[in-house]
């Protein structure tokens, strides 16, 4: 198995176990909210945005209305970065490191800058273009995820596993746009 991705049956079983255990022990998995918490931590370090108060259930509030919503729940997490959900999201990076160091899939030199599907279409010399597209893509993805209230993990995986219809609605919105965009952007017509 060295260097190869797990096949769908074993891989799906493993990922499914992680999803179930997280829900059983704490709550369903989610990732995109933690980008807001990270923004809040950076924002608060530059100019204080989160304050303690007795007027909300969480004991915190913020001048930013998004951090202040739901009785200051996000504001509290910004003020306490060692909260479960934020530490969970940060720890995903350790999983990538450990898997790669053991028997997980390995990167080629070109893949450090851009995935193979990109290199097959645009060549390997355009790494700045790939960085730029990743940056813009990230902007759209997190803005969209916040409008939707979740992402692939929170809406799609955790949502559908609980038979929540919101997961299906989110998946519909995502795929109806992402499929044609990927087909056009990575079409092999005019490829190198």
């Amino acid at each position: 198995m060295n260097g190869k991705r797990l096949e769908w049956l074993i891989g799906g079983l493993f990922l499914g176990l992680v999803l179930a255990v997280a829900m059983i022990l704490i709550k369903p998995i989610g990732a995109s909210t933690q980008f807001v918490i990270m923004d809040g931590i950076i924002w608060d370090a530059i100019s204080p945005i989160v304050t303690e108060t007795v007027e909300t259930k969480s004991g915190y509030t913020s001048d930013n209305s998004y951090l202040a919503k739901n009785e200051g729940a996000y504001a509290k997490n910004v003020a306490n970065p060692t909260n479960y959900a934020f530490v969970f999201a940060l720890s995903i990076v350790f999983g990538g490191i450990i898997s790669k160091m053991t028997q997980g899939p390995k990167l080629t030199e070109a893949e450090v800058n851009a995935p193979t599907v990109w290199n097959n279409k645009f060549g390997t010399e355009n790494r700045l273009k790939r960085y730029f597209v990743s940056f813009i893509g990230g902007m759209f993805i997190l803005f969209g995820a916040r409008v939707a209230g979740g992402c692939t993990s929170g809406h799609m995986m955790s949502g559908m596993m609980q038979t929540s219809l919101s997961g299906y609605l989110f998946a519909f919105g995502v795929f109806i746009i992402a499929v044609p965009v990927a087909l056009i952007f990575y079409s092999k017509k005019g490829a190198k």
Partner: protein
Amino acid sequence: MSATLLAIILGTAFGFAIHRVGASNPSGIINMLRLKDMHLMRVIFFSIAVASTIIFIGMASGFVDSTHMSIKSMNWGVIIGGMIFGLGWGVAGYCPGTAVCALGEGRKDALFFILGALLGSYFFMLGFDFLKDSFLFDSLFGGKVLLADMTPKNATPLISAVPAVATALIVAIVFSAIAYFLPTAKEPEKL
């Protein structure tokens, strides 16, 4: 066990699984969206089936706490936000979670993705005052709705003719069948 330690263990396990199934590689996501390699679609469908089976059997037999359920509301934002998400997903090939894993794996484009993502969510935070009273967050199709016959935090069940665990198992069987029949590309690196 402290919540922080649990977060480290579960987050690491999630990242490890993401990496092992190949989800931190944008080629896998992009080739799935190009309908050339359904490997990750199979993984996702099957993982949902496995997780759903465990938690619903667990809740029916009483060893899983059903108050841990968390059903998100449906509104226009879910579908429009999904479409904005799809625009970025189709070109970048990272999700918020897989990008963090990819950073650990040593992918430099994932770092730029994360910086862009932090900026995108910052824009949303700045625009929230303007967006919060718009039609985006008006409840749609009944708001918090789930298929199975349960009412976590006032969510509405859609199918009450059969027990929740039966509905969940039927969905899990359908998802497993989809995972079984979808094709995996033999040489994904050539796509």
